């Protein structure tokens, strides 16, 4: 165990009984989350992501295995000990779980029951949070009077009000429009940086993972099939599942559909080549297209582009139509292949 570790699971198994049949949902999950990290968990719907994070604060008891919080095994802990731990953990539930009988203010104030803060302090803190999630005018509204996204924002505020050490977010931005999502992610990042808040993010939005996560684990049918820092997983996914996840979020993926449907966009003249060039670390600093255009006298027409900066490194690629003399194209292709790991000829003219 490293000193900076905040959560570690060891061989966690969780089974449910459904329809009298035993259903394994988590199968031997071992992972470790460091203090101050933003840790993403992705996977198919039903993979066991929610069940896993629910184990982290003990509201789901693992069937087998151990879960350590700051080095302390929480399995079998006395309930008051567990309570002390839970107060350090903020949780945003996938279904929000807002209290219908309390106003927005009352919902957010609830975790402060044991905080010993004065009325003014509570008021101040909540006013701040309402500002942050952009709901100051809904202070006295009841959950039934809120839109889906507003509910989610209240849930976010509630999870943060107690200034937790670690925040568990189960699809915390799934109901939010891109702009609100961005501002929430910005807020989380800020808390992470300034207060060292550890954040566990379950999400199906790859953009969220890219935006804030440092590490990511891929859960498939209850097993962790891939893990690592975000850049390496996204730039070089090992498992088919991870690849297809990443592909679906990239515009480049849709080129295949276009080829299949014989879209005019990817219609090639004789001699032309449809190329997919994937960028990896530092390759972006080279003006590739310019170089081959000049050197080999070929034209590279960019059909699809998806290049982003992830953890300071470029990620993504281009789909280009290469045209020119046959020998020129061959040499250009040769050059590109030497320089870039992933070059794929998608189609010939």
């Amino acid at each position: 165990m490293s000193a900076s570790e905040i959560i570690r699971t060891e061989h966690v198994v969780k089974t449910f009984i459904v329809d009298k049949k035993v259903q394994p949902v988590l199968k031997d999950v071992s992972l470790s989350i460091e203090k101050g990290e933003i840790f993403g968990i992705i996977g198919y719907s039903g993979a066991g992501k929610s069940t896993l994070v629910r184990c982290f604060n003990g509201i789901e008891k693992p069937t087998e295995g151990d879960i350590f919080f700051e080095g302390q095994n929480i399995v079998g802990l006395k309930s008051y000990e567990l309570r002390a731990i839970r107060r350090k953990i903020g949780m945003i539930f996938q279904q929000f779980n807002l209290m219908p009988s309390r106003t927005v203010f009352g919902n957010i104030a609830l975790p402060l029951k044991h905080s010993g803060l004065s009325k003014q302090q509570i008021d101040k803190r909540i006013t701040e949070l309402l500002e942050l999630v952009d709901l100051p005018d809904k202070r006295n509204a009841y959950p039934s009077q809120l839109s889906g996204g507003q509910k989610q924002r209240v849930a976010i505020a509630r999870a943060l009000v107690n200034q937790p050490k670690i925040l568990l977010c189960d699809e915390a931005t799934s109901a939010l429009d891109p702009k609100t999502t961005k501002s929430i992610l910005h807020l989380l990042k800020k808390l992470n940086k300034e207060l060292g808040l550890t954040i566990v993010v379950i999400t199906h939005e790859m953009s969220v993972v890219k935006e804030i996560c440092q590490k990511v684990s891929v859960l498939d049918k209850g097993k962790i099939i891939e893990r690592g820092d975000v850049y390496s997983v996204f730039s070089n996914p090992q498992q088919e599942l991870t690849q297809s996840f990443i592909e679906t979020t990239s515009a480049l993926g849709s080129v295949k559909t276009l080829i299949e449907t014989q879209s005019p966009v990817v219609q090639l003249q004789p001699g032309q080549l449809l190329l997919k060039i994937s960028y990896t670390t530092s390759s972006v600093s080279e003006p590739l297209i310019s170089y081959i255009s000049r050197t080999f006298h070929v034209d590279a027409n960019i059909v699809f582009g998806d290049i982003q900066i992830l953890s300071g490194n470029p990620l993504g690629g281009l789909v280009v139509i290469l045209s020119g003399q046959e020998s020129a194209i061959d040499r250009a292709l040769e050059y590109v292949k030497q320089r870039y790991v992933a070059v794929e000829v998608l189609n010939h003219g």
Partner: protein
Amino acid sequence: MDNVLQLLLPNVSQVMDEFYLSIIQTLQMVFVSGLISFILSLVIGILLVSTRKGDILANSFVFNVFDKLINLFRSIPFIILIAALIPITRLISGTAVGVQGTLFPLIVGITPFFSRQIESALSEVDDGLIESGIAMGLSPFQIILSVYLKEGISSIVRVTTITVISLIGLTAIVGVVGGGGIGDFAIRYGYQQNQLDATYVSIIVLLIFVSIVQILGTFISKRTTH
């Protein structure tokens, strides 16, 4: 005015004092025993819900003791219960007769029923809410207060309405220990002496009580539903 009264209520007008007194007696019985029983039933109902299997204070021993005790008390016909309680009533209230003597049996009579009603009301609170209280690190006591009671409030009001009306009905039976009350008045004059005016006027008074309780209950229940 007095003449009209005599014409409309030939019998009751003879015993107006007793009639007024019986109304006050009913009010006293319902208020005092209702209030005490409400508090007791809340406690017992909460105990039942929170100690059941899988809940925040899961404790099958405590649960079973209360569960079985309630069944036992609900098995005893009320009139027998009153009789059996007489010595204890005397110990607690100083006397086993009169309004004062009815309070204890009324409480013992209605509390098991009331507790079940509260249990039923609290059972309606969504598991997800309890879970989210647990996740916040609230203590069982805080969960009871801030989740079970707060979120169950409109159900609690509904079952309380039903129970208070049942309690009004129960006060008619405690006439056996001279508790009086409007129900007993109706039985003694209306039923035993076949004085129709006594029957009607008593039922009207009871109906007014019942309606007030019902309207109040519906109002509060609506106000607490969001």
